[in-house]
């Protein structure tokens, strides 16, 4: 896929999202990749919060707001309904946040993958419950300060490895992506739409409000996360993990941590510990 091949038409505009929001960019790119022939299920998350101010309807495609824990169940049901009606060409897509995937929605996701209906589950990961006021979630990384884990007693648990959890279900296709690499992400979405079965895409979406950086650095921070090794772009297919993008230069993780106020309190020893963990994962 090349930049000029992307649809010029906009299907998601004038949302109430913060300036520089990567989740809004993620929705825009997703609908561009799949086209108009798709329906969306959105649980309680930033996207439903910024899209559902009556009479504002920023989605130019059908979408429904679902209960927090039921995203994947709804996807499975809608997909089965379309199959019964003979409309298997319609893509059924879930746009869930990190809390709605890793904490609240994980049993529905597990059940839906087990059912085997065709759908795309997209988890956009901004590493906390952002729309309710930055509470920690299962995907908050070690060391981050949130409103429920403020700076002296910061988050002391590692980030949940959702990719390994979904891979353990023997899912046909799963991938990780980042909003800073839009073509890589859109290729993965198109690839997922061609798989006849449940698919899962985990996309890192930096949040200027929650992470504490100026809104114009959104793309740069995502790129830094990949280059420093805090985030990997991988694919899971036919029972094997594959790295889709290896950064040309590797940055020390301290550079990434220094850009955000949520990591401001970390001591040099703690940063060294994070770096050690990344180096161990890389080898």
């Amino acid at each position: 896929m090349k930049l000029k091949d992307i649809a010029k038409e906009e299907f998601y505009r004038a949302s109430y999202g913060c300036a520089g929001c990567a989740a809004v960019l993620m929705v825009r790119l997703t609908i561009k990749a799949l086209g108009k022939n798709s329906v969306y299920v959105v649980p309680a998350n930033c996207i439903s919060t910024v899209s559902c101010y009556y009479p504002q309807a920023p989605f130019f495609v059908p979408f429904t707001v679902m209960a927090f824990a039921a995203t994947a169940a709804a996807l499975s049901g809608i997909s089965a309904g379309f199959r019964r009606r003979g409309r298997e060409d319609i893509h059924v897509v879930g746009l869930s946040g990190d809390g709605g995937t890793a904490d609240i929605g994980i049993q529905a996701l597990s059940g839906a993958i087990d059912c085997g209906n065709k759908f795309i589950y997209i988890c956009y990961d901004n590493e906390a419950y952002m729309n309710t006021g930055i509470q920690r979630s299962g995907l908050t990384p070690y060391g981050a300060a949130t409103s429920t884990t403020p700076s002296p007693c910061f988050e002391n648990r590692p980030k949940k490895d959702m990719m390994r959890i979904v891979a353990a279900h023997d899912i046909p296709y799963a991938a990780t992506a980042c909003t800073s690499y839009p073509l890589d992400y859109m290729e993965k979405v198109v690839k997922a739409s061609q798989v006849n079965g449940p698919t899962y895409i985990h996309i890192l979406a930096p949040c200027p409000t929650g992470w504490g950086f100026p809104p114009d650095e959104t793309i740069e921070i995502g790129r830094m996360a990949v280059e420093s090794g805090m985030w990997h772009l991988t694919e899971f297919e036919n029972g094997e993990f594959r790295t889709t993008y290896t950064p040309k230069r590797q940055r020390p993780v301290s550079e990434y941590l220094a850009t955000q106020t949520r990591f401001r309190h970390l001591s040099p020893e703690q940063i060294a510990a994070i770096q050690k963990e990344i180096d161990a994962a890389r080898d």
Partner: protein
Amino acid sequence: MKKEKSIPGPVQKAGTIPTRMGSWSTAKPVLKGKCTFCLFCWVFCPEGAIVQDEANRKVTFNFEDCKGCGICVRECPTKAIEMVEQQGDK
């Protein structure tokens, strides 16, 4: 096939956008330097506020949608876009 029931109450079609977010911005991007038509600004704009002209490939900004985040300024490889502070109401 059975006729589908209509939904009671007022209904808005998908894509109804009576409110535009352009009033949020405190600064607006202006194309000043040499544009190479790479479209990086267009693909990274979260709002889809950057429009490319079909005929002469020129990039223009839709200030009805632009929230003034400045991603286009940061991501432009030739640094052709600049942020201009806005004074008072537009």
